[in-house]
C-alpha cells in the first residue's frame, strides 16, 4: 500500500506492506536516524513526533499516520536547534544509539514538566545503557535554558 506521510515538512510517499510500522517506513525511506531497538515500545530508541506528540514509531502502523505530521531526528535540528546543542554541549550520550530518541523525547517535553523529578519520569520511556542519565537530564534542562 502507499502511505502519504508528511515527514519533516516534506511529503513522503512510502510503498509499504500493510503490516509495516512507521519505524519500518521511515527507515525504508532512508531516514535511518531513527533507530530500531526493542520493537515493543519499551526502549524509546525509535521515538519520533507525530502531530507534536512523542510516539514509539515501532508500535504505530505506517498506515495510521497517513496525512499526519511526522518529525524525526533528521528534522529536529532545524526546528529545535537548542535541543541538539544541549545534547552536544552536555555530552548527553556515549554510544549514541539511544540519542536520536532521547533528543526527540526532550524536544517533545512540554512546559508542564518542570522539576528534575518530573523530567526523569517523563524520560523514563527512553532507555540509556551507557551514561547513567545524568548528562541526558542535564541536556533536558539546558535545552530549555534552565
Amino acid at each position, binding site marked *: 500500500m502507499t502511505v502519504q506521510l508528511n515527514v519533516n515538512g516534506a511529503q513522503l510517499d512510502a510503498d509499504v*506492506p500493510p*503490516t*509495516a510500522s512507521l519505524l*519500518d517506513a521511515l527507515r525504508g525511506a532512508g531516514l*535511518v*536516524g*531513527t*533507530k*530500531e*531497538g*526493542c*520493537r*515493543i515500545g*519499551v*526502549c524509546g*530508541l525509535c521515538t519520533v513526533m507525530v502531530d507534536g506528540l512523542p510516539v514509539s514509531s515501532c508500535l504505530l502502523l505506517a498506515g495510521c499516520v497517513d496525512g499526519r505530521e511526522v518529525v*524525526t*531526528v*533528521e528534522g*529536529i*535540528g532545524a526546528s529545535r536547534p537548542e535541543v*541538539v546543542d544541549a*545534547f*552536544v*554541549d552536555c*555530552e*548527553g*550520550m*556515549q*554510544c*549514541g*544509539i*539511544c*540519542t*536520536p530518541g532521547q*533528543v526527540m523525547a526532550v524536544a517533545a517535553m512540554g512546559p508542564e514538566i518542570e522539576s528534575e523529578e518530573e*523530567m*526523569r*519520569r517523563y*524520560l*523514563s*520511556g*527512553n*532507555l*540509556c*545503557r*551507557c*551514561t*547513567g*542519565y*545524568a*548528562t*541526558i*537530564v542535564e541536556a533536558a534542562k539546558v535545552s530549555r535554558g534552565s
Partner: protein
Amino acid sequence: MSADEAGVDLVRQDARAKATGKMRYSADLPLEGVLHAVVVRSPVPHAQIVSIESDAARARDGVVAVVTGAELGQVMAGRRVRDMPVLAREETRFTGEGIAVALGTSREVAESAARLVAIDYQELPAVTEPATALAPDSARVHAAASEYDGAVVSLSDPPNLQSELVDGSQEEVDVALASAAHVVTATYRTQAGHQGYLEPICWTAIPRQGGGILLQGTCKQPYQVRTQVAKALGVPTDLVEVGPMPLGGDFGGKGGMLDATLCAALARWAGQPVRLALRSDEDLMSTDARHGSTMDVRLGCDRDGRLVGLSLDALLDGGAYAASKPIPSVNLHGMAEAALGYRLSAFYVRSRIVYTHTVPKGHMRAPGAPQAVFAIESAMDELAQKVRIPAAELRRRNLLHSGERDAYGHQWPEARGAITLDAALDEPVRSKAPNKWRTGTGMALYARPTLPPGPTSLRLVGGGDGSFVVELPFPDTGTGSHSVVGEEMAHCLGVARDRVIVRQVPTNALPYDLGVGGSWVTAGVSAAIRRLADAWNASSKDRPVMVATEPEDGPAALAYCAQVAHVAVDPETGQVRVLELVTAVDVAQVLRPRSHRLQVDGGAVMGLGFALLEDLLEEGGQVWASNFAEFRLPTAEDVPLLRTVLVPGGTGVGPANVKSVGELSNVPTAAAVANAVADAVGARVRQLPITAESVYWCLEEKEVS
C-alpha cells in the same frame, strides 16, 4: 576534588553526528543487493532434530533459500574453544539456538518464511541446573567435550565441566580457618543477565572474488574476529576483512564472532551479500549472557579482625557452549581477582563453569567480578558483625598498604584502598527516606589491575594545514575512546585539540590490534600515541607515519573503587529504594574528565541494575525475560542521586599515567546495596537481584528464627 572540577572538555568528536541522527551504525548501512537472513531458532532446550521441512517457506515470493547446517557443512565457531556449530545439525542444545536460516530479499519476507519452516524435534531430557550437571550420572550436554578444538577439559574431568580455574591452597585455608576466631560460611547466588546494549547484533558479509569476505558489523575486536572467522571457515586470515563501525553499546557483548561466522558462511554459500540483523528479543535469548553463579564463601579472621583466610568456591552456569569465552582459561578472570585488594595469608579460589542446556554465557563488564565481589564483600560485612567491629574498620585493617603483596604474592607499589573507602564514607548523606521506612548504609570495595599496554597500531596523516587524521584499528564502543585519542594526539603534537580527527580503518589497513576489552584501551593506546608523535616529528612530515607497538611488561597499577549506598527499606513490604550511591575512584591522570565521569556514572547504574532489577529469569532451559519490558534496565526515574568522588594523586601505567575506569563502578554496587539493606532492617539477602519479595521473605525468616 569533584569529578566536575577536574577539567574542561572539548566537545566529543562524534557528538553532533549522534545528536542529529547522522551517525551510521551497522544496521544503517545501505542494502542494495543484500539478502536478509532470519534464523529459525530452537523452541526447546534439548532435542534431536528429526527433520526440517522447508518447502512452504521456499515457495514464498522473495525467498531465495532456506539454509540448514547440512548445506553449510561442519562450521564450528568459538573464540578459544570451537565447540559451537553455526547452525545445529542433529541435536539442539539450548532454546534460541539457530537451526536453519531463511534468506530473502527483504527482512519481512525472510521472517515470514522462517515461521513456515517446520522442524520436527524429538525432545530429550535437559540439563538445566549447574548443581546437578557435575554429578557422575548426569546426562551430558556434549558427548565428548574434551575433543573440541581448544578444549581445556579432559576425559577424566566430571561430566559437563566447561572449564575450571583454581588458585591458592585449600589446605592452607582449612588450616587457617580452623584456628580463626571468627568464620563466616555462607552461600551467595547471582542471576543470569545480559549486557543490555540497546543496538542489537547486526552483521553484513560481502563475498569477494578469490574467496575473500568483507564483514561489517557490531564488533569491538575486529582483528580477533577476523582470525576466528577465518579459522572457522577454514580460509587464510588475510581473506577476511573486518570493516570499521561505531558500536551502539558493548559492555562485553560485542566481542563475539558467532553471528559473524554464520553471516560470513551464509554469504559464501549464497555468493551474495548477506545481512544478519537480530531482533532485540533474539539477541537477549541467544547471545553471550552473563553467568549466573552459586558461590560458597568461607572468610575468617583473628580476634582483632585481621583476615586469616578466604575461600571462594564458585559454580557458574556456562550454558550450552564455551564458544563465547575469550581468555585462555575459558573462565572468568574476575573470579580469581575478586579479593586482590586485601592482605590474605591463606587464599583459595575455585571457579568451575559447567555446560548446561541454556544460552551460552560470555563476558560482561569485568567478567566474574560483580558476582565474586558481591559474595566476598557481603561476607566481609557478615564477618564484621561477628567480630563486632564496624564494617569500614574491618576493611581498613585488611586492605593492602602500598608495597605489600596480594594473595598471589604480587607486590603492588601503590595500594590506596583505605583512602578510597574513606573518601566515599566522608560524603555527607543528603537524601531523606519516606516516612516509616528504615534507612541503612552499606559499603563495598573492588580493586582491579590496570594492565600494561597490549599490541596496537596507529597511523598519522598530516593534512598539510596543521590538521591531522589519526587512523586507528579499534572502534569507539561509546566510551569516547576516539575523542581521548584525538585529544591526546593533539597534546603530543602540540596542536589545538580540535585539529586532530580520529578514524577507524579496516583490518587490512593497519597491523594487529587486540581490540576493545579489559579496560585496556586508554592505557594501551597512550603509549602508541607518544611513539607516533615522536615518529612524526622525526619524519619528513610529507607522508603518513605508522607505528605498531608490541605488548609491554611492566608493573600494572591497582585501581580501587569504593561505593557507599544509602537505602531506605519499607519494613512491611520489603521494598528497597536506593537513595544515594557514592562512588569513590582511585585515579592517576584523568585524560578526558567527561568520558571518565560517564564511565563511572554508567557503571554505577549498571551495578544498580545487577543489584536490583536485571534478571533473564532462566528456568527450565528457557529465558523468560527475553525482552526489555521484562529484562528491566534502570530508567532515568530508577536512578538515585549519584555522586562521584575522585581520589587524585595515584600512579598509573604507561606514559600517560592512567588507571583504567571502564570496569570499576559496576562491580561493588550489589554488595554495597545488600550491606545497606542488612544495615537498615537486619535482613541479609544473599541472592540477586534484591527484590521486595526477597527482602520480605528474609524479614519473615528473621521473625521466625
